[in-house]
């Protein structure tokens, strides 16, 4: 298992919390506590970051190409989470390995979500919520929720890895009130 690093180096490079490794339940709960309790003095902002964290972290656990067995032996996704702290906002990012084939539909979903007004997005969420609980495309409502919670667009980038796979990064800005 890769070493799990949670660091607080606010002054150096704006990083409030960062983590790379397996996204299993136990680690997620440690990160969740950190976000809920200590990220910012404003509980409302912490709650927003927490809500975004839950949805995006689950995507890594389910869909990351890089996988490891957790302590109980069940197969879980590996990825990275970084929260940066700026004067008037946070930037929440997650990254994970993927293939071009798997990530194209996700990027299209992000573009689609970013093109919608808040009203349209809410309508889209209502529609998605009434879809039967299927495994495929299940990440859709999570991404809609992230955009609605942050009230900011979903930014993404794709980095080609030497082994021919890709590293997908999704970031969202959360304004401090």
């Amino acid at each position, binding site marked *: 298992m890769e070493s799990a690093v949670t660091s607080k180096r606010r002054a150096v490079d704006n990083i409030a919390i960062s983590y790379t490794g397996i996204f299993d339940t136990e680690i997620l709960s440690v990160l969740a506590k950190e976000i809920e309790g200590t990220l910012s003095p404003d509980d409302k902002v912490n709650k927003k970051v927490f809500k975004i964290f839950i949805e995006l972290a689950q995507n890594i656990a389910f869909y990351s190409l890089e996988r490891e067995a957790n302590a109980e032996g069940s197969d879980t996704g590996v990825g990275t989470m970084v929260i940066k702290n700026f004067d008037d906002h946070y930037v929440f990012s997650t990254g994970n390995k993927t293939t071009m084939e798997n990530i194209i539909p996700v990027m299209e979903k992000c573009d689609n979500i970013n093109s919608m007004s808040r009203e349209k997005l*809410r309508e889209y969420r209502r529609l998605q919520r009434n879809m039967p609980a299927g495994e495929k495309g299940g990440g859709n409502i999570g991404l809609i929720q992230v955009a609605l919670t942050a009230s900011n667009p979903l930014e993404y980038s794709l980095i080609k890895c030497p082994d021919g796979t890709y590293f997908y990064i999704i970031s969202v800005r959360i304004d401090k009130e």
Partner: protein
Amino acid sequence: MMEDIHIEGVHEAYFTPTVNFEASTGRCEISGESYLEETSKFYARLIDWLKRYIANVKGPLSFDFKLSYFNTSSSKCLVDILDVLKNYQNAGGEITVNWYYDDSEEELEEVEDFILETGLDINKIPME
């Protein structure tokens, strides 16, 4: 005589909401936080209880939602509960639904979307 449901909320790696469903009065409450490992399974038990109450007891239902957090998987199941309540109301059942929301614009929007989505009258009450 129908059984009640009492589930004590847990805030650990996952968050189980506190649930109190009372068959003798038709008073139901879900409170706390909902982020579960097996979301559908957890809510299936609650929906089954409601359906049996509606079929057998046929009494009034007063439902309080007091959730300070629920993830998107939970929200799908909450819509399923609201649909059951709406169907009962359409069939002549006496229904009251109170939704206590964390006082923010986003969470108020979420309740309004539940109303639009299900066509159910829901009383929107800001949480203390």
